[in-house]
């Protein structure tokens, strides 16, 4: 079929301009319509993940961030009857096929309640088995004060997935990071309490200033 429109400079410019304008207008409309459902879906997913890794709680988990070792970690504080019962901490470590990102739930007594994988790109059938209970359930009720958070090959207490030591290491590493983050959170909280009661300690100085400016 012969083209009805000549390929003159003016025609080409006009045509591409029109195509782009119409496409972007269409996209803007779809974006506006899907914005809320996407947010709702993401929110539901997060809440779901939190509910899996911490004990029963009330109200909406509160999102906060904390800086540990130059990296920023986000965590959710869940509470029941006004008392914080635990934290759901997002942490990740590099596995075999990229980052393995976990949500790690740690109760106030520094025991890991449960863990869940938020995203991973490990090999299906090998490393991807880290999402299965056979491996992941080892971390349920894991007390890092009594056992060592690394695979048995490295002298720890975690049974690695067969032929997927790198993934297992990454998983253990991410959980370990979460414990470190937990320690920083509790340290910051204690400092907060100290600051509120008027006591000034060296590490609480920063928080005390923050309290005043609020």
């Amino acid at each position, binding site marked *: 079929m012969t*083209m009805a*429109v000549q*390929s003159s400079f003016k025609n080409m410019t006009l*045509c591409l301009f029109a195509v782009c304008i119409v496409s972007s207008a269409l*996209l803007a409309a779809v974006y506006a319509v*899907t914005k809320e459902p996407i947010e709702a879906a993401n929110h539901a997913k997060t809440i779901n993940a939190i509910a899996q890794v911490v004990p029963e709680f009330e109200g909406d988990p509160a999102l906060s961030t904390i800086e540990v070792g130059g990296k920023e970690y986000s965590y959710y504080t869940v509470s029941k009857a006004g008392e914080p019962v635990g934290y759901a901490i997002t942490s990740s470590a590099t596995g075999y096929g990229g980052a393995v990102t976990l949500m790690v739930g740690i109760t106030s007594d520094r025991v890991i309640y449960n863990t869940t994988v938020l995203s991973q790109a490990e090999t*299906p059938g090998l490393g991807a088995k880290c999402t299965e209970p056979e491996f992941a359930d080892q971390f349920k009720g894991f007390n890092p004060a009594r056992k060592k958070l690394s695979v048995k090959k490295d002298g720890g207490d975690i049974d690695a997935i067969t032929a997927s030591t790198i993934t297992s290491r990454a998983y253990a590493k991410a959980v370990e990071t979460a414990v470190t983050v937990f320690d920083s959170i509790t340290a910051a909280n204690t400092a907060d309490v100290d600051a509120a009661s008027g006591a000034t300690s060296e590490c609480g100085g920063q928080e005390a200033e923050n309290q005043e400016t609020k």
Partner: protein
Amino acid sequence: MGKIQLITKGFVKENPTFSLLLGMCPTLATTTSAINGMSMGLATVFVLVLSNMAISATAPYIPDKVRIPAYIVIIAAFVTILQLVMQAFTPDIYETLGLFIPLIVVNCIVLGRAEAFANKNSVVDSACDGIGIGIGFTFALTLLGLVREILGSGSAFGYKFITGDGILVFVLAPGAFMALAYLIVLFKKVTAKKGE
């Protein structure tokens, strides 16, 4: 050519996967299970039908020299729409297919149909062509996914019928090539008989 023929030709004679060997990237990568293959196929059908129709309707007004960029923008727009809609309403499937949804933009099947068919035919014919080729692609991906899932994980459509592992290699990349090769041989054998 009748409308029915337009639809059926994509299934056998011009089957994009088994006959034309187009769109190998999503074919090999997403078919780790039957469900994944089918979702990828259906996502492509959506884009293929809409882009075929849009391109067929606008082709007379697009100057020849800029037709490829214009087609790509149209296709990319539909892919992004699909991506947003999937993210909103089927987040689980969106997560599994992940990167391969945006990659539909550069899937040669879609641009191939625009160039070879949609820009010279009517909107209705182009829609039929899109449905035909798309269903052929979906069929091929589902079949490949099913074979790999049965051999590799010992399950079909997520329903597990053996305990323990399958032949692991079929879930991994090399298994995709092997399974696809055997399916193509089988397909050629069946269609060669028919063709006589």
